[in-house]
């Protein structure tokens, strides 16, 4: 807990210093543009986070399923999206699909690309967590005659959830930072806004300092949320300290 508080504090102070710096340098001119970029970044990050969770869970269930076809389909998905680069996937969604008559808005393409890509990594984290729930838990469910899907959703997944939080947190932080790539599909996120403002105003240090701090703060929010979640879900293990 302590390290989180300290780093949050450091982040907040650095942000204020940066802000003061910007204000006193009379560089308010570029701040609105950066904040507009921030909104786009938040949108992409938030929406693709939801898709990321959904894909991770679905693909992990597929990969741990008894059904061969599901295992195969989930395996293919993970291989394709882990095996090729995010940037290329974004290009495909935005520039190649229209060739086949599928036209996506920049936001849709960005969210789809990010969510599917990170979902492939998340699937492995979730799968590992599911497999690390002791076999005895499943056997107890069978002995208690619980239906298979209740076994999964009430016994196995809640325990797997506690195990997957750290791994999924890492991926979420990676996801937040990877939103910088969505300028590839013409979205103006923070990074892209910063580059543009820099071309106009030439205040490289201030602009990129603020950009860095904004990303840092976003990641701190993720880290703090994850810490809260971790405490909550592992309460039963007596793992409070």
């Amino acid at each position, binding site marked *: 807990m302590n390290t989180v508080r300290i780093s949050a504090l450091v982040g907040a102070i650095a942000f204020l210093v940066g802000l003061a710096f910007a204000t006193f340098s009379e560089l308010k001119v570029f701040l609105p543009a950066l904040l507009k970029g921030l909104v786009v970044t938040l949108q992409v990050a938030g929406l693709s986070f939801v898709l990321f969770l959904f894909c991770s869970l679905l693909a992990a269930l597929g990969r741990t399923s008894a059904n061969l076809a599901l295992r195969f389909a989930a395996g293919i998905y993970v291989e394709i999206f882990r095996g090729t680069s995010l940037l290329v996937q974004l290009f495909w969604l935005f520039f190649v699909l229209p060739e086949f008559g599928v036209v996506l808005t920049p936001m849709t393409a960005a969210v789809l690309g990010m969510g599917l890509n990170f979902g492939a990594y998340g699937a492995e984290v979730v799968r590992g967590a599911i497999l690390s729930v*002791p076999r*005895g*838990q499943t*056997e*107890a*469910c*069978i*002995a*208690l*005659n*619980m*239906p298979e899907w*209740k076994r999964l959703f*009430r*016994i196995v997944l*809640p*325990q797997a959830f*506690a195990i997957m939080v750290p791994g999924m947190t890492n991926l979420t932080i990676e996801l937040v930072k990877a939103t910088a790539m969505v300028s590839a599909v013409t979205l103006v996120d923070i990074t892209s806004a910063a580059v543009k403002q820099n071309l106009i105003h030439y205040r490289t240090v201030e602009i990129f300092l603020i950009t860095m701090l904004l990303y840092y703060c976003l990641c701190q929010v993720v880290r703090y949320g994850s810490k809260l979640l971790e405490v909550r879900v592992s309460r*039963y*293990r*007596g793992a409070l300290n």
Partner: protein
Amino acid sequence: MKTPKIRFDKVTKRYGELTVLDSLDLDIAPGEVVAVIGPSGSGKTTVLRVLMTLERINEGVIWIDGEPMNRMRQGDALVPASQAHVRKLRSKIGMVFQSFNLFPHMTVLGNCIEAPIHSLGLPRAEAEARAEGLLAKVGLADKRNHYPSQLSGGQQQRVAIARALAMQPEILLFDEPTSALDPEMVGEVLEVIRELARTHSYTMLLVTHQMGFAREVADRVCFFEGGKFVEQGEPNAFFTQPQSPRAAQFLSKVLQAG
């Protein structure tokens, strides 16, 4: 003879090359308490696990109340059982594991109402009333809101027994229920099992290394080795005058050690 509660009919279970149950036959009468003893690694746990449907068997038929469990009737033939058929028969059986296998993310009460609500479809209030009665019976009424990690091993195993009873099974399987416990906690768990055995309201199959306990509560002792029941008998006779050399050898070893 009356229909046996449980019948193993030439049941064979193999793990690869290893034959753990070798054309095993066994009949258990309703309300009978049977203790299974035998050397470590001989396959005693496997006997319970195939009965609980945790493992598939390779050959033979297991019958519950005269109905085949791993098979079902279709005309005159026995065909592989459907999931629904297995679930129906399995609902008559409850099992207590060596390592408890409580749900760590649920309270004691939560553990005991989980399956009654989500498997039997009992209303929550009814499931709670039932669970509280059973927790009182195993002496843990005051622990209802604790998590398993906050309980001693003996307490956890008693919760596991209450959880199994909450499903109102007719058959109870115990797999070395006290062998994961510190010595001072063995007594409290045996006391609960003794009480269950005394009433003869359940058909019980108990794998144990506690020879004294087996002798005290069982109607019959079965000595298992080499994939078969080598010898069975009334406990006093078995423990004082084992007929087979293998059983005699086993008893002299464990009684010496104990």
